[in-house]
């Protein structure tokens, strides 16, 4: 009998509690809701390596970077003409790191020499990281007759090679937004 009382009291308390909790929540009308905007953002720091030691494929052409007879970078080939040759970004390798790349949605309604007021919309803002460190980043621009270097009859002509090392200053914000044809 005593136990049943207890259970009844508990049930009442739980129900009252729920009722109180509901009373704590206030409804938002449309106007109040329209004033709320997302305040979230993303902060990224990264250290990205591409084939620094060598890629996953090891065959007659690709291999480890310490093997002088093998190519160790990533390869991207694309064709500009049906039955034509291939443009190639070859031997893409290296490491770059950055600290403090930010990503957020921002409302612009002022500034920009008076453009902000006319614009008055949301943009996606990518905050550039101020400094990007390149460590032995290399790639080659080339042309080849076949996409796969392991295919028979493969010929490739390297046009130029690019090498980057050290810190690059990259400050500011990249703003991205939908834009119609003017």
């Amino acid at each position: 009998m005593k136990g049943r009382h207890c259970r009844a009291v508990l049930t009442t308390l739980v129900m009252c509690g729920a009722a109180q909790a509901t009373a704590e929540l206030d409804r938002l009308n449309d106007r109040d809701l329209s004033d709320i905007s997302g305040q979230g953002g993303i902060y990224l720091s990264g250290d990205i390596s591409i084939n620094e030691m060598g890629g996953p494929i090891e065959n007659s052409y690709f291999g480890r970077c310490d093997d002088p007879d093998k190519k160790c970078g990533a390869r991207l080939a694309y064709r500009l003409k049906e039955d034509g040759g291939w443009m190639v970004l070859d031997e893409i390798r290296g490491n770059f790191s950055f600290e403090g790349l930010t990503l957020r949605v921002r409302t612009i309604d002022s500034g920009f020499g008076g453009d902000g007021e006319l614009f008055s919309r949301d943009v996606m803002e990518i905050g550039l990281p101020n400094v990007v460190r390149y460590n032995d980043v290399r790639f080659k621009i080339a042309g080849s007759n076949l996409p796969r270097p392991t295919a028979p009859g493969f010929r490739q002509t390297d046009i130029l090679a690019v090498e980057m090392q050290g810190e690059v200053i990259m400050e500011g914000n990249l703003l991205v937004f939908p834009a119609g044809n003017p």
Partner: protein
Amino acid sequence: MFSSLKRHCVADRLPRAFLVMVVLLAPGLTTAELQGLSEHELSEIDGAGIGVVLENFVFSHGTDTPDADGNQARIFKIGGLKSTDGRDVEIVVNHLYISGAGSNYGQSLSPVNLGRLVNPYRIDVVDGNEIGISDRAVLEFAAPALVDATQGFDCMSSGAQAGTGTCASRPATSDFVGERPDIGMQMNVAVGDDRSANISIHAKSAVIDGSFLRLWGDDDRRQMVGQFKLNFQTPELSINACSQDGLSCGSRITMTNFALELAIGNQLQPVFFDVDGTGNFVVEVAAIEPPAPGAIGADGLRGSSDTETWDFYEDYYTNPDYRSNLHIGNFSVADRDFGSARVEGMLIQHLDIRTKDLAP
């Protein structure tokens, strides 16, 4: 209506009538929430591309020597090239920068905006019919578009006010960084062991408004084709050669009020890109088709010719959009002035560029 309702009530058919009315009224209420668009409003709507603006942007890269604190040297090297006598050519970019106005040839970097929120850099797929490329979707990378001269800014003057020219990008003022960057590059060209060539190129308050790159596919040749237009204007473009440490420099070649309008490819003669069987890169602008025999009269006048053909060639040879121009306000070397230079109306009738492998 009320009388009919009364009749229904009498006939004890109220529930069904009520249901019918609710069903009939409900769509009416929904329609009231949606507003119709007028023809005028509809014509304002266009497919949206992506607009890109860089705010308070500074870019700087490269020096071949370690900094004062002994930190690692920055290197930006372009290699793999060969001179005609077989020596390796290496271009070391000692300094590449994009900065705000008044950078003193890249010495003091400050922020600048690139593109305007109301006229940004755009990446867009556009309807070819609107730009003279029939029935094609065209991928377009475009700098801020040129505007009406009553609203724009003079493209050259770094103190231009609104209503003085066709450029959308504004020069820097005392309280606004503007949208015209100082850009420059200092590079060392090494041929074999000879590293003596040290060349710097600087452009002040540069504007590329109205430039674009358009890419699309050609059905007949089954190939990627393009059209490239570069409008580059700067009040001062300078070139000089310096010692490798950059401390002592030779005479500066200065070109003031430099304007280049370069048109490579057009709607009638697009640029073709390809790689040939030996792996060499090919850029080609095909010659325009000659008229059919007899289509143009012996005297060359419109009256004696097929008018459609005659108008086509008349447009091709007179349309200023197909032509490249170069204006230099004043060309000077150190303190010697050589006056102004103009090269106008260059038309690329045929172009065929092929890279060639010099390796044995």
